[in-house]
């Protein structure tokens, strides 16, 4: 009898109360905001002639971009070109990434130069869209190339 009572008290304290705590945590968590989702495959649109004119820009003459997101950071890659990957950060609705282009026969694409992505995501647009520029670091005379991108394969993620 005494043992049963102790068991019930221990069970309430160690199992019942934590479950109540879990309910409280789930309620509190509803107010938490996570970074905007940019994960997925994007259809990339930019003027090909302007991209080709940009040193190192030839590596981007593609119609696709893939973004793999982990919270406020992401990796950006050009499908079918595994060496073209960039790490970036997402602050608010602004994406920033630096891409080290793969070695190419582009003589202007000097080793060590990076392509800088700067874009803003439109959170309301369906499909989600990006508008931004691609520029070459350490090249003040190189004109940035404007681009747009539309998310083709939205992240089929959980719970919303």
């Amino acid at each position, binding site marked *: 009898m005494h043992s049963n009572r102790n068991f019930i008290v221990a069970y309430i304290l160690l199992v019942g109360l934590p479950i109540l705590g879990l309910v409280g945590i789930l309620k509190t968590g509803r107010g938490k905001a996570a970074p905007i989702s940019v994960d997925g495959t994007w259809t990339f649109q930019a003027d090909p002639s302007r991209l080709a004119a940009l040193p190192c820009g030839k590596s981007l003459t593609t119609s696709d971009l893939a973004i793999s997101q982990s919270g406020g950071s992401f990796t950006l890659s050009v499908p079918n070109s595994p060496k073209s990957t960039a790490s970036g950060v997402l602050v608010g609705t602004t994406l920033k990434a630096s891409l080290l282009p793969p070695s190419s026969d582009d003589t202007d694409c000097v080793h060590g130069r990076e392509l800088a992505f700067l874009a803003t995501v439109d959170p309301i647009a369906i499909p989600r869209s990006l508008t931004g520029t691609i520029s070459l670091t350490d090249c003040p005379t190189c004109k940035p190339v404007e681009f747009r991108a539309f998310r083709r394969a939205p992240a089929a993620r959980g*719970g919303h």
Partner: protein
Amino acid sequence: MPNLFLLVLQIAVVVAVCRIVGSLFRLIHQPRVVGEMFAGILLGPSFLGWMAPGVSAYLFPPNSLGFLNALSQVGVMIFMFLVGLGINPKELKSHGHAAVLTSHVSITAPFVLAAFLSLYLYPKLSDDSVAFSSFALFMGAAMSITAFPVLARILTERDLLGSRLGTIAIACAAVDDVTGWCILAYIVLLIRSAHSASPIWLTVGGLLGFALFMIYVVRLLLRRFQTIYERKGGLTENLLALMLLLVLSSALLTEWLGLHLLFGAFLMGAIMPKEAKFVRYIVDRFETIAITLLLPLFFAFTGLRTNFGLVNGPEMWMYTALIILVATAGKLGGSMIASWLAGMPLRESAGLGTLMNTRGLMELVILNIGLDIKVISPALFSMMVLMALFTTFMTTPVLEMICPDRILRARVANVSSHAPVSTMALESSDGSAA
């Protein structure tokens, strides 16, 4: 069409690396599965892709991974069938208050702590396409799982199966796994139904109907397998093929109903007859190919998805440390305190907590589901894989430190002179255990 040469080459490399690394880990008294999990990481971008990117790109080009994944999923499906087969409800009922309290606390403590940690991690490692509740519940389920096949292996190696510690650990791990999979089923259902055309009540109703049909109709039919086995001393190839067909059908039905095929395979194993010799016979027939060939492919596929390069910077490593700390505090601490309050000596309680903290392959299965349904991000996936490796690796040395053999053997109680049925699944003679 798959590139057959490349696929066979991939399988050969994966099996060879897993066997070698697994054997090396056996030398340091770790279960082979820990080495195989580690081997998978070695083959992925965190090591091979980093050390020899050319070799990695040749051996595992992204467009070839679909075939590797498909094969590995077949392996995990058979593994889950064997895990279900190893669970015996009768054993779960026979350990009194201590086991009930310990097993339930060993779920709720890590679950609640993980949900609490999610308040901090969600804004940093997730995004707005994932609801907080899905994220927190998934983290809870992932942290509260215990890999009872590994645990059973460790207990067998240390000759502790007949001890009070051993029997309670096995019972608690089985309860944890069943509960963990039920919670995961709920989360998967919640997430998939949000993107499904059919209403959730239809999916839930269908699944409930299916589960009841399996438990009350199919289970009775499955007894025929055991009857034939007892009469003839074995099953014909046709009957074994029929059994495999039932596993596949059950898996397909749960997938079709909107859950995941692994749940169907697990359920089919759970409702199979539990007579010890029959279970051993079935395990012997299915585990060789699953454990030596197909599961290494799963480890490799998991390794290929794990990129420690995403865990970059002190902040990300701090999150990883927090995850490991919370997972260990919740599982080890929770089980230890509960069993101590239930009357177990402190040293044995600490041993039980250490055993319950073993996550092994079960954790990798859950994490892969989480990544597939995108409830966790690639960086968080990598952190959680690190946690799974760390908590599984630490079990043997920590257990040896706090519960030396000489002390535990002296306390072997007359709980059972036989190994529980649940420990028979997935224990190969060479020391492998998944």
